């Protein structure tokens, strides 16, 4: 439990243990790996957004000099029906296999159809052009509202909407309808003095990691197959490949490379199963690296959404009812993050009457994947915009309105349980007292504020701390480190053992070395893997104490451990951890602590952001002039990397709110599949991102940690959207606020 205490390492801005390798270019990312005899795989992709695949003739490609293997959907062993638990959520294997390589239909432009492995990338690309695919082009449907129409082209003949009162008798593009409610919204709105209701649209946004997907694999029929890849969860890569290709888990080893960004987008598989098939067929190691346009065309962005929000409040500021509606674009296969969108939409508010309805819709765009607080930014954007408008109508300060209605310990959520201790009120108060909020706006500027809620998760983490004879230790963990988590693990173990950081080396181990470990996602790593490293380190301390007690012929209760030294409370002796480790073989064997936990009690993290913008009234161009991100960390293990999560999330959200969007041509092809025209924020686009780290401890973590990775991307949509509207005296209803859209709002009068 976490009352105030003095820490030696926790809370320090330490140098990350993997840092030197990363700043010198020595760190090995997935595309940096090569095996002897390795060949290269490339993918043929559909130019059509929706078509039947009538035939695929690969004979010319197979005969092309330098080609070793060709793969199509038919190379999956089949029977990959049903779904499996790949870590945190159920994955529909049939859909997954059909997304990796199209079966009888292509469902989006860029959908993989076949793959070639050849002596070089160049030869593989030449061979792709020799594959003859016969398509019967079908009408495609690109927009959510169109896909939901009864007469829309249907993507999946076997998809019948789930969650309707009556069983549907016709297939539909609506995979699921869901509704969560509590109280009586009609009665709540009847009590309200002010009601605001608006409709919103949010574009799909790509995670935009700078490192394209990449892997190198070696299939081994008799022994053990190997995958070296860029992933947030190598145990899930193993699970998915095992199921898709019928390989026993123990015969498939996945080695996580350093990962060049994920943000949720590297929690599934695209290349690895194809590479394994090509390796199996060619008998050679196969390397595959996506081109940037493939990343944008065929890997998961998050969903576009159509939304409605309606909020009612009394004159005194009491919110009486909140109602939401949303339809999320899942892409070509069911499974948008609509459900978390529904669950999070109004969670920052303590309101008794809430009703939210959601639709998961398929259409002829690439399958979506998780992206930082999946589903929450879209729905909470709609909610925050309407809450700000309620404050405006009531003549109330938007922070005061939120404080009056803020979710806190004991607040009933729409998704079931009551909240435990959370830090929204503290974040709102910090925002209100911030220099930013206290500052005056210049002429022509606008200011926006928004809150954000994300659950955070726990789950499986497996860790071993091995102590060596020189007193140093290895922290063997299974959570791929995307943002500096090895530093946090090192600090937590150092805190327990009371020895200097540089005596401890954290290692992200392969799937053979540890039991299953959940994906780095859901803001779980510092929380859950952190709990596991603490438990493992505590086991080391117990062993060290026991060895010292045995040496002194006293009981374990008669010794005390602090700062890396065991002291005999019954005598004068003391012995260092290093000395105990040196003699460990003689005192009962080497010293090591393991913890395989299923962490529960993840603490939600609330965030509140403030944004000032300036709008060029003649061109509609928006300049973010000041930005502050405030968020509850529970306890910041490494404040630098906690701030980094806030800043990075804020800037991804700013990009989504201002310029990031998918543009499709009339054939349904992505027209901006590159960093030139998919416009992520640049260094020159931004001011410094100020941060305020609020610490309301999570009682379920020994040091009070909450996850911090995701909540920061939620508030920017509302904070930027409201600020833009504030600057031009209009109401923003559609993101991104790109210059043409803002200019047309200005001109619309």
């Amino acid at each position, binding site marked *: 439990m976490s009352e105030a205490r003095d820490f030696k390492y926790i809370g320090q801005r330490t140098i990350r243990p993997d840092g030197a390798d990363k700043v010198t270019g020595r760190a090995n990312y997935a595309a940096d790996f090569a095996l002897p005899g390795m060949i290269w795989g490339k993918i043929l992709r559909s130019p059509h957004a929706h078509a039947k695949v009538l035939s695929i003739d690969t004979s010319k490609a197979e005969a092309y000099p330098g080609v070793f293997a060709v793969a199509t959907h038919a190379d999956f062993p089949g029977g990959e029906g049903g779904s499996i*638990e790949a870590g945190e959520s159920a994955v529909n294997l049939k859909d997954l296999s059909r997304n990796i390589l199209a079966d009888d239909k292509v469902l989006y432009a860029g959908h993989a159809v076949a793959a070639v492995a050849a002596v070089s990338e160049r030869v593989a690309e030449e061979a792709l052009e020799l594959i003859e695919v016969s398509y019967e082009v079908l009408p495609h449907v690109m927009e959510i509202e169109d896909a939901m129409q009864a007469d829309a082209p249907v993507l999946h003949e076997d998809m019948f909407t789930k969650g309707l009162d009556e069983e549907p008798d016709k297939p539909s593009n609506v995979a699921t309808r869901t509704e969560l409610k509590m109280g009586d919204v009609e009665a709540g709105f009847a009590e309200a003095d002010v009601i605001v209701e608006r409709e919103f649209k949010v574009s799909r946004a790509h995670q935009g990691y700078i490192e394209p997907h990449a892997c190198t694999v070696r299939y081994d029929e008799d022994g053990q197959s190997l995958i070296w890849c860029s992933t947030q969860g190598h145990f899930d890569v193993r699970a998915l490949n095992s199921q898709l290709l019928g390989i026993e888990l123990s015969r498939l080893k996945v080695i996580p490379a350093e990962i060049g960004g994920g943000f949720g987008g590297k929690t599934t598989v695209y290349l690895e199963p194809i590479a394994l098939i090509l390796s199996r067929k060619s008998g050679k190691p196969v390397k595959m690296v996506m081109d940037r346009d493939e990343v944008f065309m065929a890997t998961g962005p998050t969903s576009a959404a159509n939304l409605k929000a309606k909020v009612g409040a009394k004159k005194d500021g009491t919110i009486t009812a909140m109602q939401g509606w949303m339809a999320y674009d899942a892409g070509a296969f069911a499974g948008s993050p609509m459900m978390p969108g529904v669950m999070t939409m109004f969670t920052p508010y303590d309101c008794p009457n809430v009703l939210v309805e959601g639709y998961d819709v398929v259409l002829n765009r690439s399958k979506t994947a998780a992206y930082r607080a999946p589903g929450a930014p879209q729905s909470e954007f709609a909610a925050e915009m309407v809450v700000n408008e309620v404050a405006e109508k009531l003549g109330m300060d938007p922070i005061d309105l939120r404080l009056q209605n803020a979710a806190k310990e004991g607040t009933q959520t729409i998704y079931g349980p009551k909240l435990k201790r959370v830090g929204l009120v503290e974040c709102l108060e910090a925002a209100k007292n911030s220099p930013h909020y206290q500052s005056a706006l210049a002429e022509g500027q606008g200011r926006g504020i928004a809150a954000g809620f994300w659950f955070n998760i726990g789950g499986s983490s497996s860790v071993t701390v091995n102590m060596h004879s020189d007193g140093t230790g290895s922290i063997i963990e299974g959570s791929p480190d995307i943002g500096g988590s090895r530093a946090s693990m090192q600090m937590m173990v150092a805190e327990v053992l009371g020895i200097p950081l540089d005596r401890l080396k954290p290692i992200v181990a392969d799937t053979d070395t540890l039991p299953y470990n959940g994906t780095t996602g859901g803001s779980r790593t510092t929380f859950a893997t952190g709990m596991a490293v603490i438990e493992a380190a505590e086991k080391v301390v117990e062993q060290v104490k026991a060895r010292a007690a045995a040496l002194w012929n006293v009981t374990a209760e008669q010794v005390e451990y602090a700062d890396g030294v065991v002291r005999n409370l019954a005598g004068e002796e003391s012995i260092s951890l290093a000395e105990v480790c040196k003699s460990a073989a003689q005192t009962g064997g080497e010293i090591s602590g393991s913890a395989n936990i299923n962490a529960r009690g993840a603490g939600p993290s609330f965030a509140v952001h403030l944004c000032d913008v300036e709008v060029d009234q003649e061109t509609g161009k928006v300049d973010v002039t000041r930005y502050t991100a405030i968020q509850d960390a529970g306890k910041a293990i490494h404040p630098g990397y906690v701030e980094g999560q806030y800043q990075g999330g804020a800037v991804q959200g700013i990009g989504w709110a201002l310029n990031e969007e998918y543009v499709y041509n009339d054939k349904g092809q992505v027209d901006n599949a590159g960093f030139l025209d998919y416009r992520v924020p640049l260094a020159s686009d931004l001011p410094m991102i100020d941060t305020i780290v609020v610490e309301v401890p999570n009682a379920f973590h020994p040091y009070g940690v909450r996850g911090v990775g995701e909540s920061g991307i939620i508030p920017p949509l509302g904070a930027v959207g409201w600020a833009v509207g504030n600057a031009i005296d209009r109401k923003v209803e559609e993101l991104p606020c790109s210059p043409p859209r803002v200019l047309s709002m200005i001109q619309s009068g």
Partner: protein
Amino acid sequence: MFAATGAVDDPVRLIRTAMAIVCFSGELLPFTGEERTETEASAFRDIVAELVQRYDRLDEEKLMGMAIAIDGVIVHTPLLEVIGPDSELHFLHRISGG
């Protein structure tokens, strides 16, 4: 690990003893027709078995695929959880994250 039981300041609970309360959110409500029920079972799997028997439209696979909250503490994969007699149990969509 942490005990998943504890007093909850819910007035409804004060008059009940030795029974866990199971609450159904909107996602399950259409199948149960009621917002809460009680059970004497304590093992998660026994509770699921009892619920499936009590509400014939409730699907065991669906329940087993959900997360639960025991007195507000979310448990992702609850297979072997034991729910205390004074506890409140919610089924909820299993969140993953990005």
